[in-house]
């Protein structure tokens, strides 16, 4: 039972992190490691991301 609850909670957490984009940082770190380049700091990375959103407005429908 507890393992089932734990699996569900982990699933929900994974989903929420993916949906909000929080997990992007982990993907970025993994990519840097794979490519053998030094990652930028998290602060820099997140600024980079928000600048991108600035130029590409997302539509929100009715």
């Amino acid at each position: 039972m507890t393992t089932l609850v734990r699996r569900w909670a982990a699933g929900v957490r994974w989903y929420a992190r993916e949906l909000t984009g929080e997990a992007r940082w982990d993907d970025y770190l993994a990519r840097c490691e794979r490519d053998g380049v030094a990652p930028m700091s998290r602060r820099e990375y997140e600024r980079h991301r928000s600048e991108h959103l600035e130029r590409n407005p997302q539509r929100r429908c009715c």
Partner: protein
Amino acid sequence: MATDTTTPPGASGPAGPPPGDAAKRPTGRRPTPLSIAIWVLVAVVGATCWTVLALHRGEDVSALWILFAAVASYLIAYRFYSKFIANRVLRLDDTRATPAERLEDGSDFEVTDRRVLYGHHFAAIAGAGPLVGPVLAAQMGYLPGTIWIVAGVILAGAVQDMVVMFFSMRRDAKSLGQMIREELGVVGGVAALIAVYAIMIILLAVLALVVVNALAESPWGVVAIGLTIPIALFMGVYLRFLRPGRVMEVTAIGVFLLLGAIALGGVVENSGLASAFELTPETLTILMVVYGFVASILPVWMLLTPRDYLSTFMKVGVILLLAIGLILARPVLQTEAVTPFAGNGQGPVFAGSLFPFLFITIACGALSGFHALISSGTTPKMIAKESHVRMVGYGGMLMESFVAVSAIIAACVIDPGLYFAMNSPAGVTGGTAEGAAEFVRTLGFTITPDQLNAFSESVETELVSRTGGAPTLAFGISLIFSEAFGSGMTAFWYYFAIMFEALFILTAIDAGTRVGRFMLQDTIGNVWPKFGDTSWRPAAWAASAATTGAWGYMLYVGVTDPLGGINQLFPLFGIANQLLAAIALTLCVTLFCKHGWWKFVWVPAVPLVWDLVVTMTASYQKVFSDNPAIGYFAQADRYRAARDAGEVLAPATEASQMDTVVFNSTVNGFLQASFAVLVLVIVANAAWIWVKAARAGSLPTTEVPHTPSQVVAPADFFATAQEKEAVRAWEAEREQTAGASR
């Protein structure tokens, strides 16, 4: 890794036949007896629920019949019709690389988990629209609205979203406007650009009007919604400077603060400060316009992004709570199945008879043209596999339809007397409980002023003539939640629901103004390149001001209209949204013709024909009807004649209001007529291409040629054992390749 040196199956040039001959079709497994039994059961449940809804009259009907009828229909439509479209009509081909795979850049184009993309797409398409339209449509009873929401989504709305997404995906995720320009030509392209911009302005004005109506003279609402701005700003600062990237924790803090803001609103309502926050609709209009302008020029990290997190979580949370609440509370429908207003077209909420006005009042939830703007351009950049178009496009729209069904239920569990007292314009109710009770009596319903006052007191705000749909929905939700989760919190739940709607509307206004600004800058940039530079402040500010000014003006028109802004503007919004759907479906039909997919052209053509019949009839009536309650120009004439004779016609109370009605109705009439003409131009442009394609059999299109896909991912919501195994094998292989290259 499969190295295919020969031409991959299904590869075709732009003009070629669709990929996927018989050999390539997904090999359907023979259905097991268990799955047959399950689907028979779903069909029986659905049929039983619809039968009960159709036949039960004059006795208590539980709202759960609607809920289960809808869910059973969605399941069957998804399992069979969407699969048919996916496999037989569009022939989704998982051997083809999607734009996300081919053009992956880590920001826009990115292979995304199908379930995550489903969430993104749903968050982008679902807003206040599916909540408001069904509430207004409840004036005709629960049955017509429910049937249209369910049938409309299955045959039209979800089909549009899925097919547009498919075509955009096959064209490097181009936007609807780009595809129209390239596939239909410049005339269609320009008409589409103007139509999209104008329709967006009306949409933003109507959404803002919904918020203004919900917050007018309501200190609790003003405080609670007003506090969302500092909360979002705080979250923005937190993510920017304090703990960059920690979205989950800041959203948890934000949601906690939101609940605190609702509670604080209650405290203010009952304190001496209340009068300071009791704002008139005119004041709120100015505040909304200023807010819209400032929000659209602030950096996104400050306000837009953090509020988007809040509204997404609130959206998902409330929908889940509502579904659970409905099952726990099992409310009984108070409205009749079909009210007399369906036939006589004299309902106070919106004028006109069931056909065509029900079908434009409920746009989002059944068929929404605006979705085509998300299904092209945005979502296709993130699709991992072609097969996901079915789940994300069709499945996402079914979920939105479910929201609309929940909304119509919430509106129909309210006492009909209260429903009409809330949704009739102040011009006819006088804005008082006595006036409303008297007016509702003339409609054939009974409610006493004392009962109305008691309802108002239960949520601590005046409910009479609180039009716009949001308050009615909020009241219905508060009834359901109080029943399901314990009484004593009715007012809290009411404002919780108001906040939930206001959050998405504010996000839509901010994002919409921004998109409008970019569209304007892009268009003017064609003749004055400097203006197109989005980082050039003067251009950005001017374009934002023009966009905000346009919807702000329409909002002002709505707020000051003596006939009631929702009554006047909602049809314009509904028709505009459905006209946008006509544009999107016209593109789909055109591409079917160009590809030579004649056998299945009915899939987008049936919804297109239906949508054109509805929107053109509605537009015609709105422009040419000689009934002043329906035709904008007839209305203007009637008030002009009376004004010239020195009379004042109700609901106007003075001569200047007569002028307002004349002017507003004329403006609305012209807008309505121009939208319809724009769409006719696009359809005529397309019809020319259909004829050319029919003569030639097919025509070249801009479809990108087949590139083999390497990505492995399950196709549907739940992965099968084989799919899981294939993903594991693929990941292990990638791991190995990455290791070898290091």
